[in-house]
């Protein structure tokens, strides 16, 4: 724990009683989130990311373990005694209050003076560009506007940490992109620690300072977006974040031997014993397609995506590989199904993972 740590989750465990026995929602999760950081919990539904968020918010208490905020254990405190605010997935705006009243709610509850409540509320309305809508009721607003009010309401008490539970999932694509920028801007302007929950890997990569990838109640990997994308710790992370080719191989000296019999260079070989069976992860955009000097492959199919063209390839032993090539100006990549090509990989692009 350092002065830089905002939220320190120590071996937090959460078990629910269900009719079919107990369900482990969170299995001994430990993670440290730095002050002023945009931290994302990423994973498929049911991975425990929302449970972790609710533990930090105080809506649930951990079955075991503790949660520290700025060095103090807050595990036993109710949500209304934690300097932490939440932007809910469904926004949960108070329907009987106006936009302005929604935003000032937290400040009033904290017993701030009338002047301060009014000043701070106006500031927040300005910040999320909702001043013109201040006297409307939430149900008179569009989804994006409700989202901004929810943000302003959670930010107005100036929490130590802002928790965001899939706040963009209800918005359409264009609005979601806009709000991603908006969120990033607000985080930089306020300097508040953001903990963001999402199942959208692109959202996680583009917005976060650091990402924690979760699965089955555990954190698999924590790192900045580049580390997560380029150095996934296992097959699940590699597969969940972006698209990846997986090839079976065995360790052969300082190289790896593919099932086709060819040996290629790979990073991470040292961590494995000679002859061990491993999985190789290769991003499609790191696959080079040429005439000679690589692995022999046959084009099975080409799929045009506009900017890119995906080339589905079959290697000598029948294993499949996808290459993502930049589309030429004509859009025609000039490779028909059945064409023989030679495949190689960019230096450092081949990752050795546990099988």
């Amino acid at each position, binding site marked *: 724990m350092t002065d830089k740590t905002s939220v320190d989750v120590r071996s937090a465990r959460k078990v629910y009683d269900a009719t079919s026995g107990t369900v482990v929602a969170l299995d001994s999760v430990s993670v440290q989130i730095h002050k002023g950081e945009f931290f994302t919990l990423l994973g498929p539904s049911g991975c425990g990311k929302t449970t972790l968020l609710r533990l930090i918010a105080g809506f649930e208490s951990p079955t075991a373990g503790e949660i520290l905020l700025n060095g103090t254990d807050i595990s036993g405190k109710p949500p209304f005694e934690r300097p932490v605010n939440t932007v809910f997935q469904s926004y949960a705006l108070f329907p009987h209050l106006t936009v302005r009243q929604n935003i000032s709610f937290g400040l009033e509850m904290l017993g701030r003076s009338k002047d301060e409540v009014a000043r701070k509320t106006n500031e927040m309305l300005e910040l999320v560009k909702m001043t013109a809508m201040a006297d409307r*009721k939430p149900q008179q607003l569009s989804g994006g506007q409700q989202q901004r009010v929810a943000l302003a309401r959670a930010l107005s008490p100036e929490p130590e940490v802002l928790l965001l539970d899939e706040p963009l999932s209800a918005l359409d694509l264009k609005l979601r992109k806009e709000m991603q920028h908006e969120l990033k801007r607000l985080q930089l302007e306020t300097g508040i620690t953001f903990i963001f929950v999402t199942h959208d890997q692109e959202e996680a990569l583009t917005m976060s300072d650091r990402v924690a990838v979760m699965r089955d109640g555990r954190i698999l990997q924590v790192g900045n977006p580049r580390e997560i994308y380029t150095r996934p710790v296992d097959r699940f992370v590699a597969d969940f974040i972006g698209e990846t080719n997986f090839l079976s191989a065995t360790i052969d000296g300082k190289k790896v031997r593919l099932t086709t019999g060819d040996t290629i260079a790979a990073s991470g070989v040292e961590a494995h014993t000679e002859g061990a069976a491993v999985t190789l992860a290769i991003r499609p955009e790191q696959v080079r397609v040429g005439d000679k000097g690589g692995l022999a492959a046959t084009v099975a199919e080409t799929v045009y995506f506009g900017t890119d063209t995906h080339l589905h390839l079959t290697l000598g032993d029948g294993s499949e590989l996808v290459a993502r090539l930049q589309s030429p100006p004509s859009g025609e990549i000039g490779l028909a199904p059945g064409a023989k090509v030679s495949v190689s990989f960019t230096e450092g692009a081949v990752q050795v993972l546990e099988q």
Partner: protein
Amino acid sequence: MARTAEQKKARDGWLLSLPALTLLILAASGPLIIIAIYAFLTAGEYSGVIWDLSFKAWFQVLFEKDIFDGTVSLADAHLTIFWRSVRLSLLTTLLTFTFGLPTAWFIATRPLKQRALWLFLITIPFWTNLLVRTFAIMEVLRVEGILNKILTGLHIIPEPLQILYTDTAVLIGMTYVYLPLMVLPLFAAIDRFDFRLIEAGYDLYAGRLTVLRRVILPIIRPGIVAGSILVFVPSLGAYVTPRVLGGGKKMMIGNFIELQFGAGRNWPLGSALALILLLIVGIALIFYVRASASENKDG
């Protein structure tokens, strides 16, 4: 074409409402008009009315003339009855709300499958005749009744309590009778309530009581208003419950009106009292309309 089809639909709708409308005019408005006329006539010697215009009934509502010296004074007994009716009805509304809110909350938070069962249980009392149920309460409350037996048996009280034939007995009886009328609209309102708003309240530093006061109660207000009207209005005109549990001593407006048409042999006074009861209900309804109107404006 569309317009004529619409017109036809409107005309059919009107035709369909005709039976209900006829019944309403004959059964509700008819007697009301008779009552409104009777209130301004002279009382017949042995009940009934004499067709002479008179405001005596209205005078009698509030004042009484001494038979011997002819001095006029306020009719304290009448005022006591009015006050008791309003007071007991308000208290009944308050008590049904106090018991009804947790009950409705409990039902609304049960799993969907269980809710139907709980709602069904709430309506069971309606299966039995009100009079029978009221006598059952009498059996519970009387001096040698179940309640006193338990309380003295457990040495909680040394002497049996005289609850029956008091305002308290009437209050207990009316709370029992009208509780479902409070629970059902409250349930409907809580059922629509978004429980995530409670978390939002906690998250924004509101404690439990503050969340109840600032978030839950304002949002379920339509249910509270509807339940209160459904309890307050019939409470005000209650007849059977005060008659049985109040033992004829603790009269409410309903009993007092009945007395005028029966032993009192003063139909005009009874009619005037009925109109006053209607007036009080009307005032209560104005509050109701105001409350729902401001709700719409808010919403």
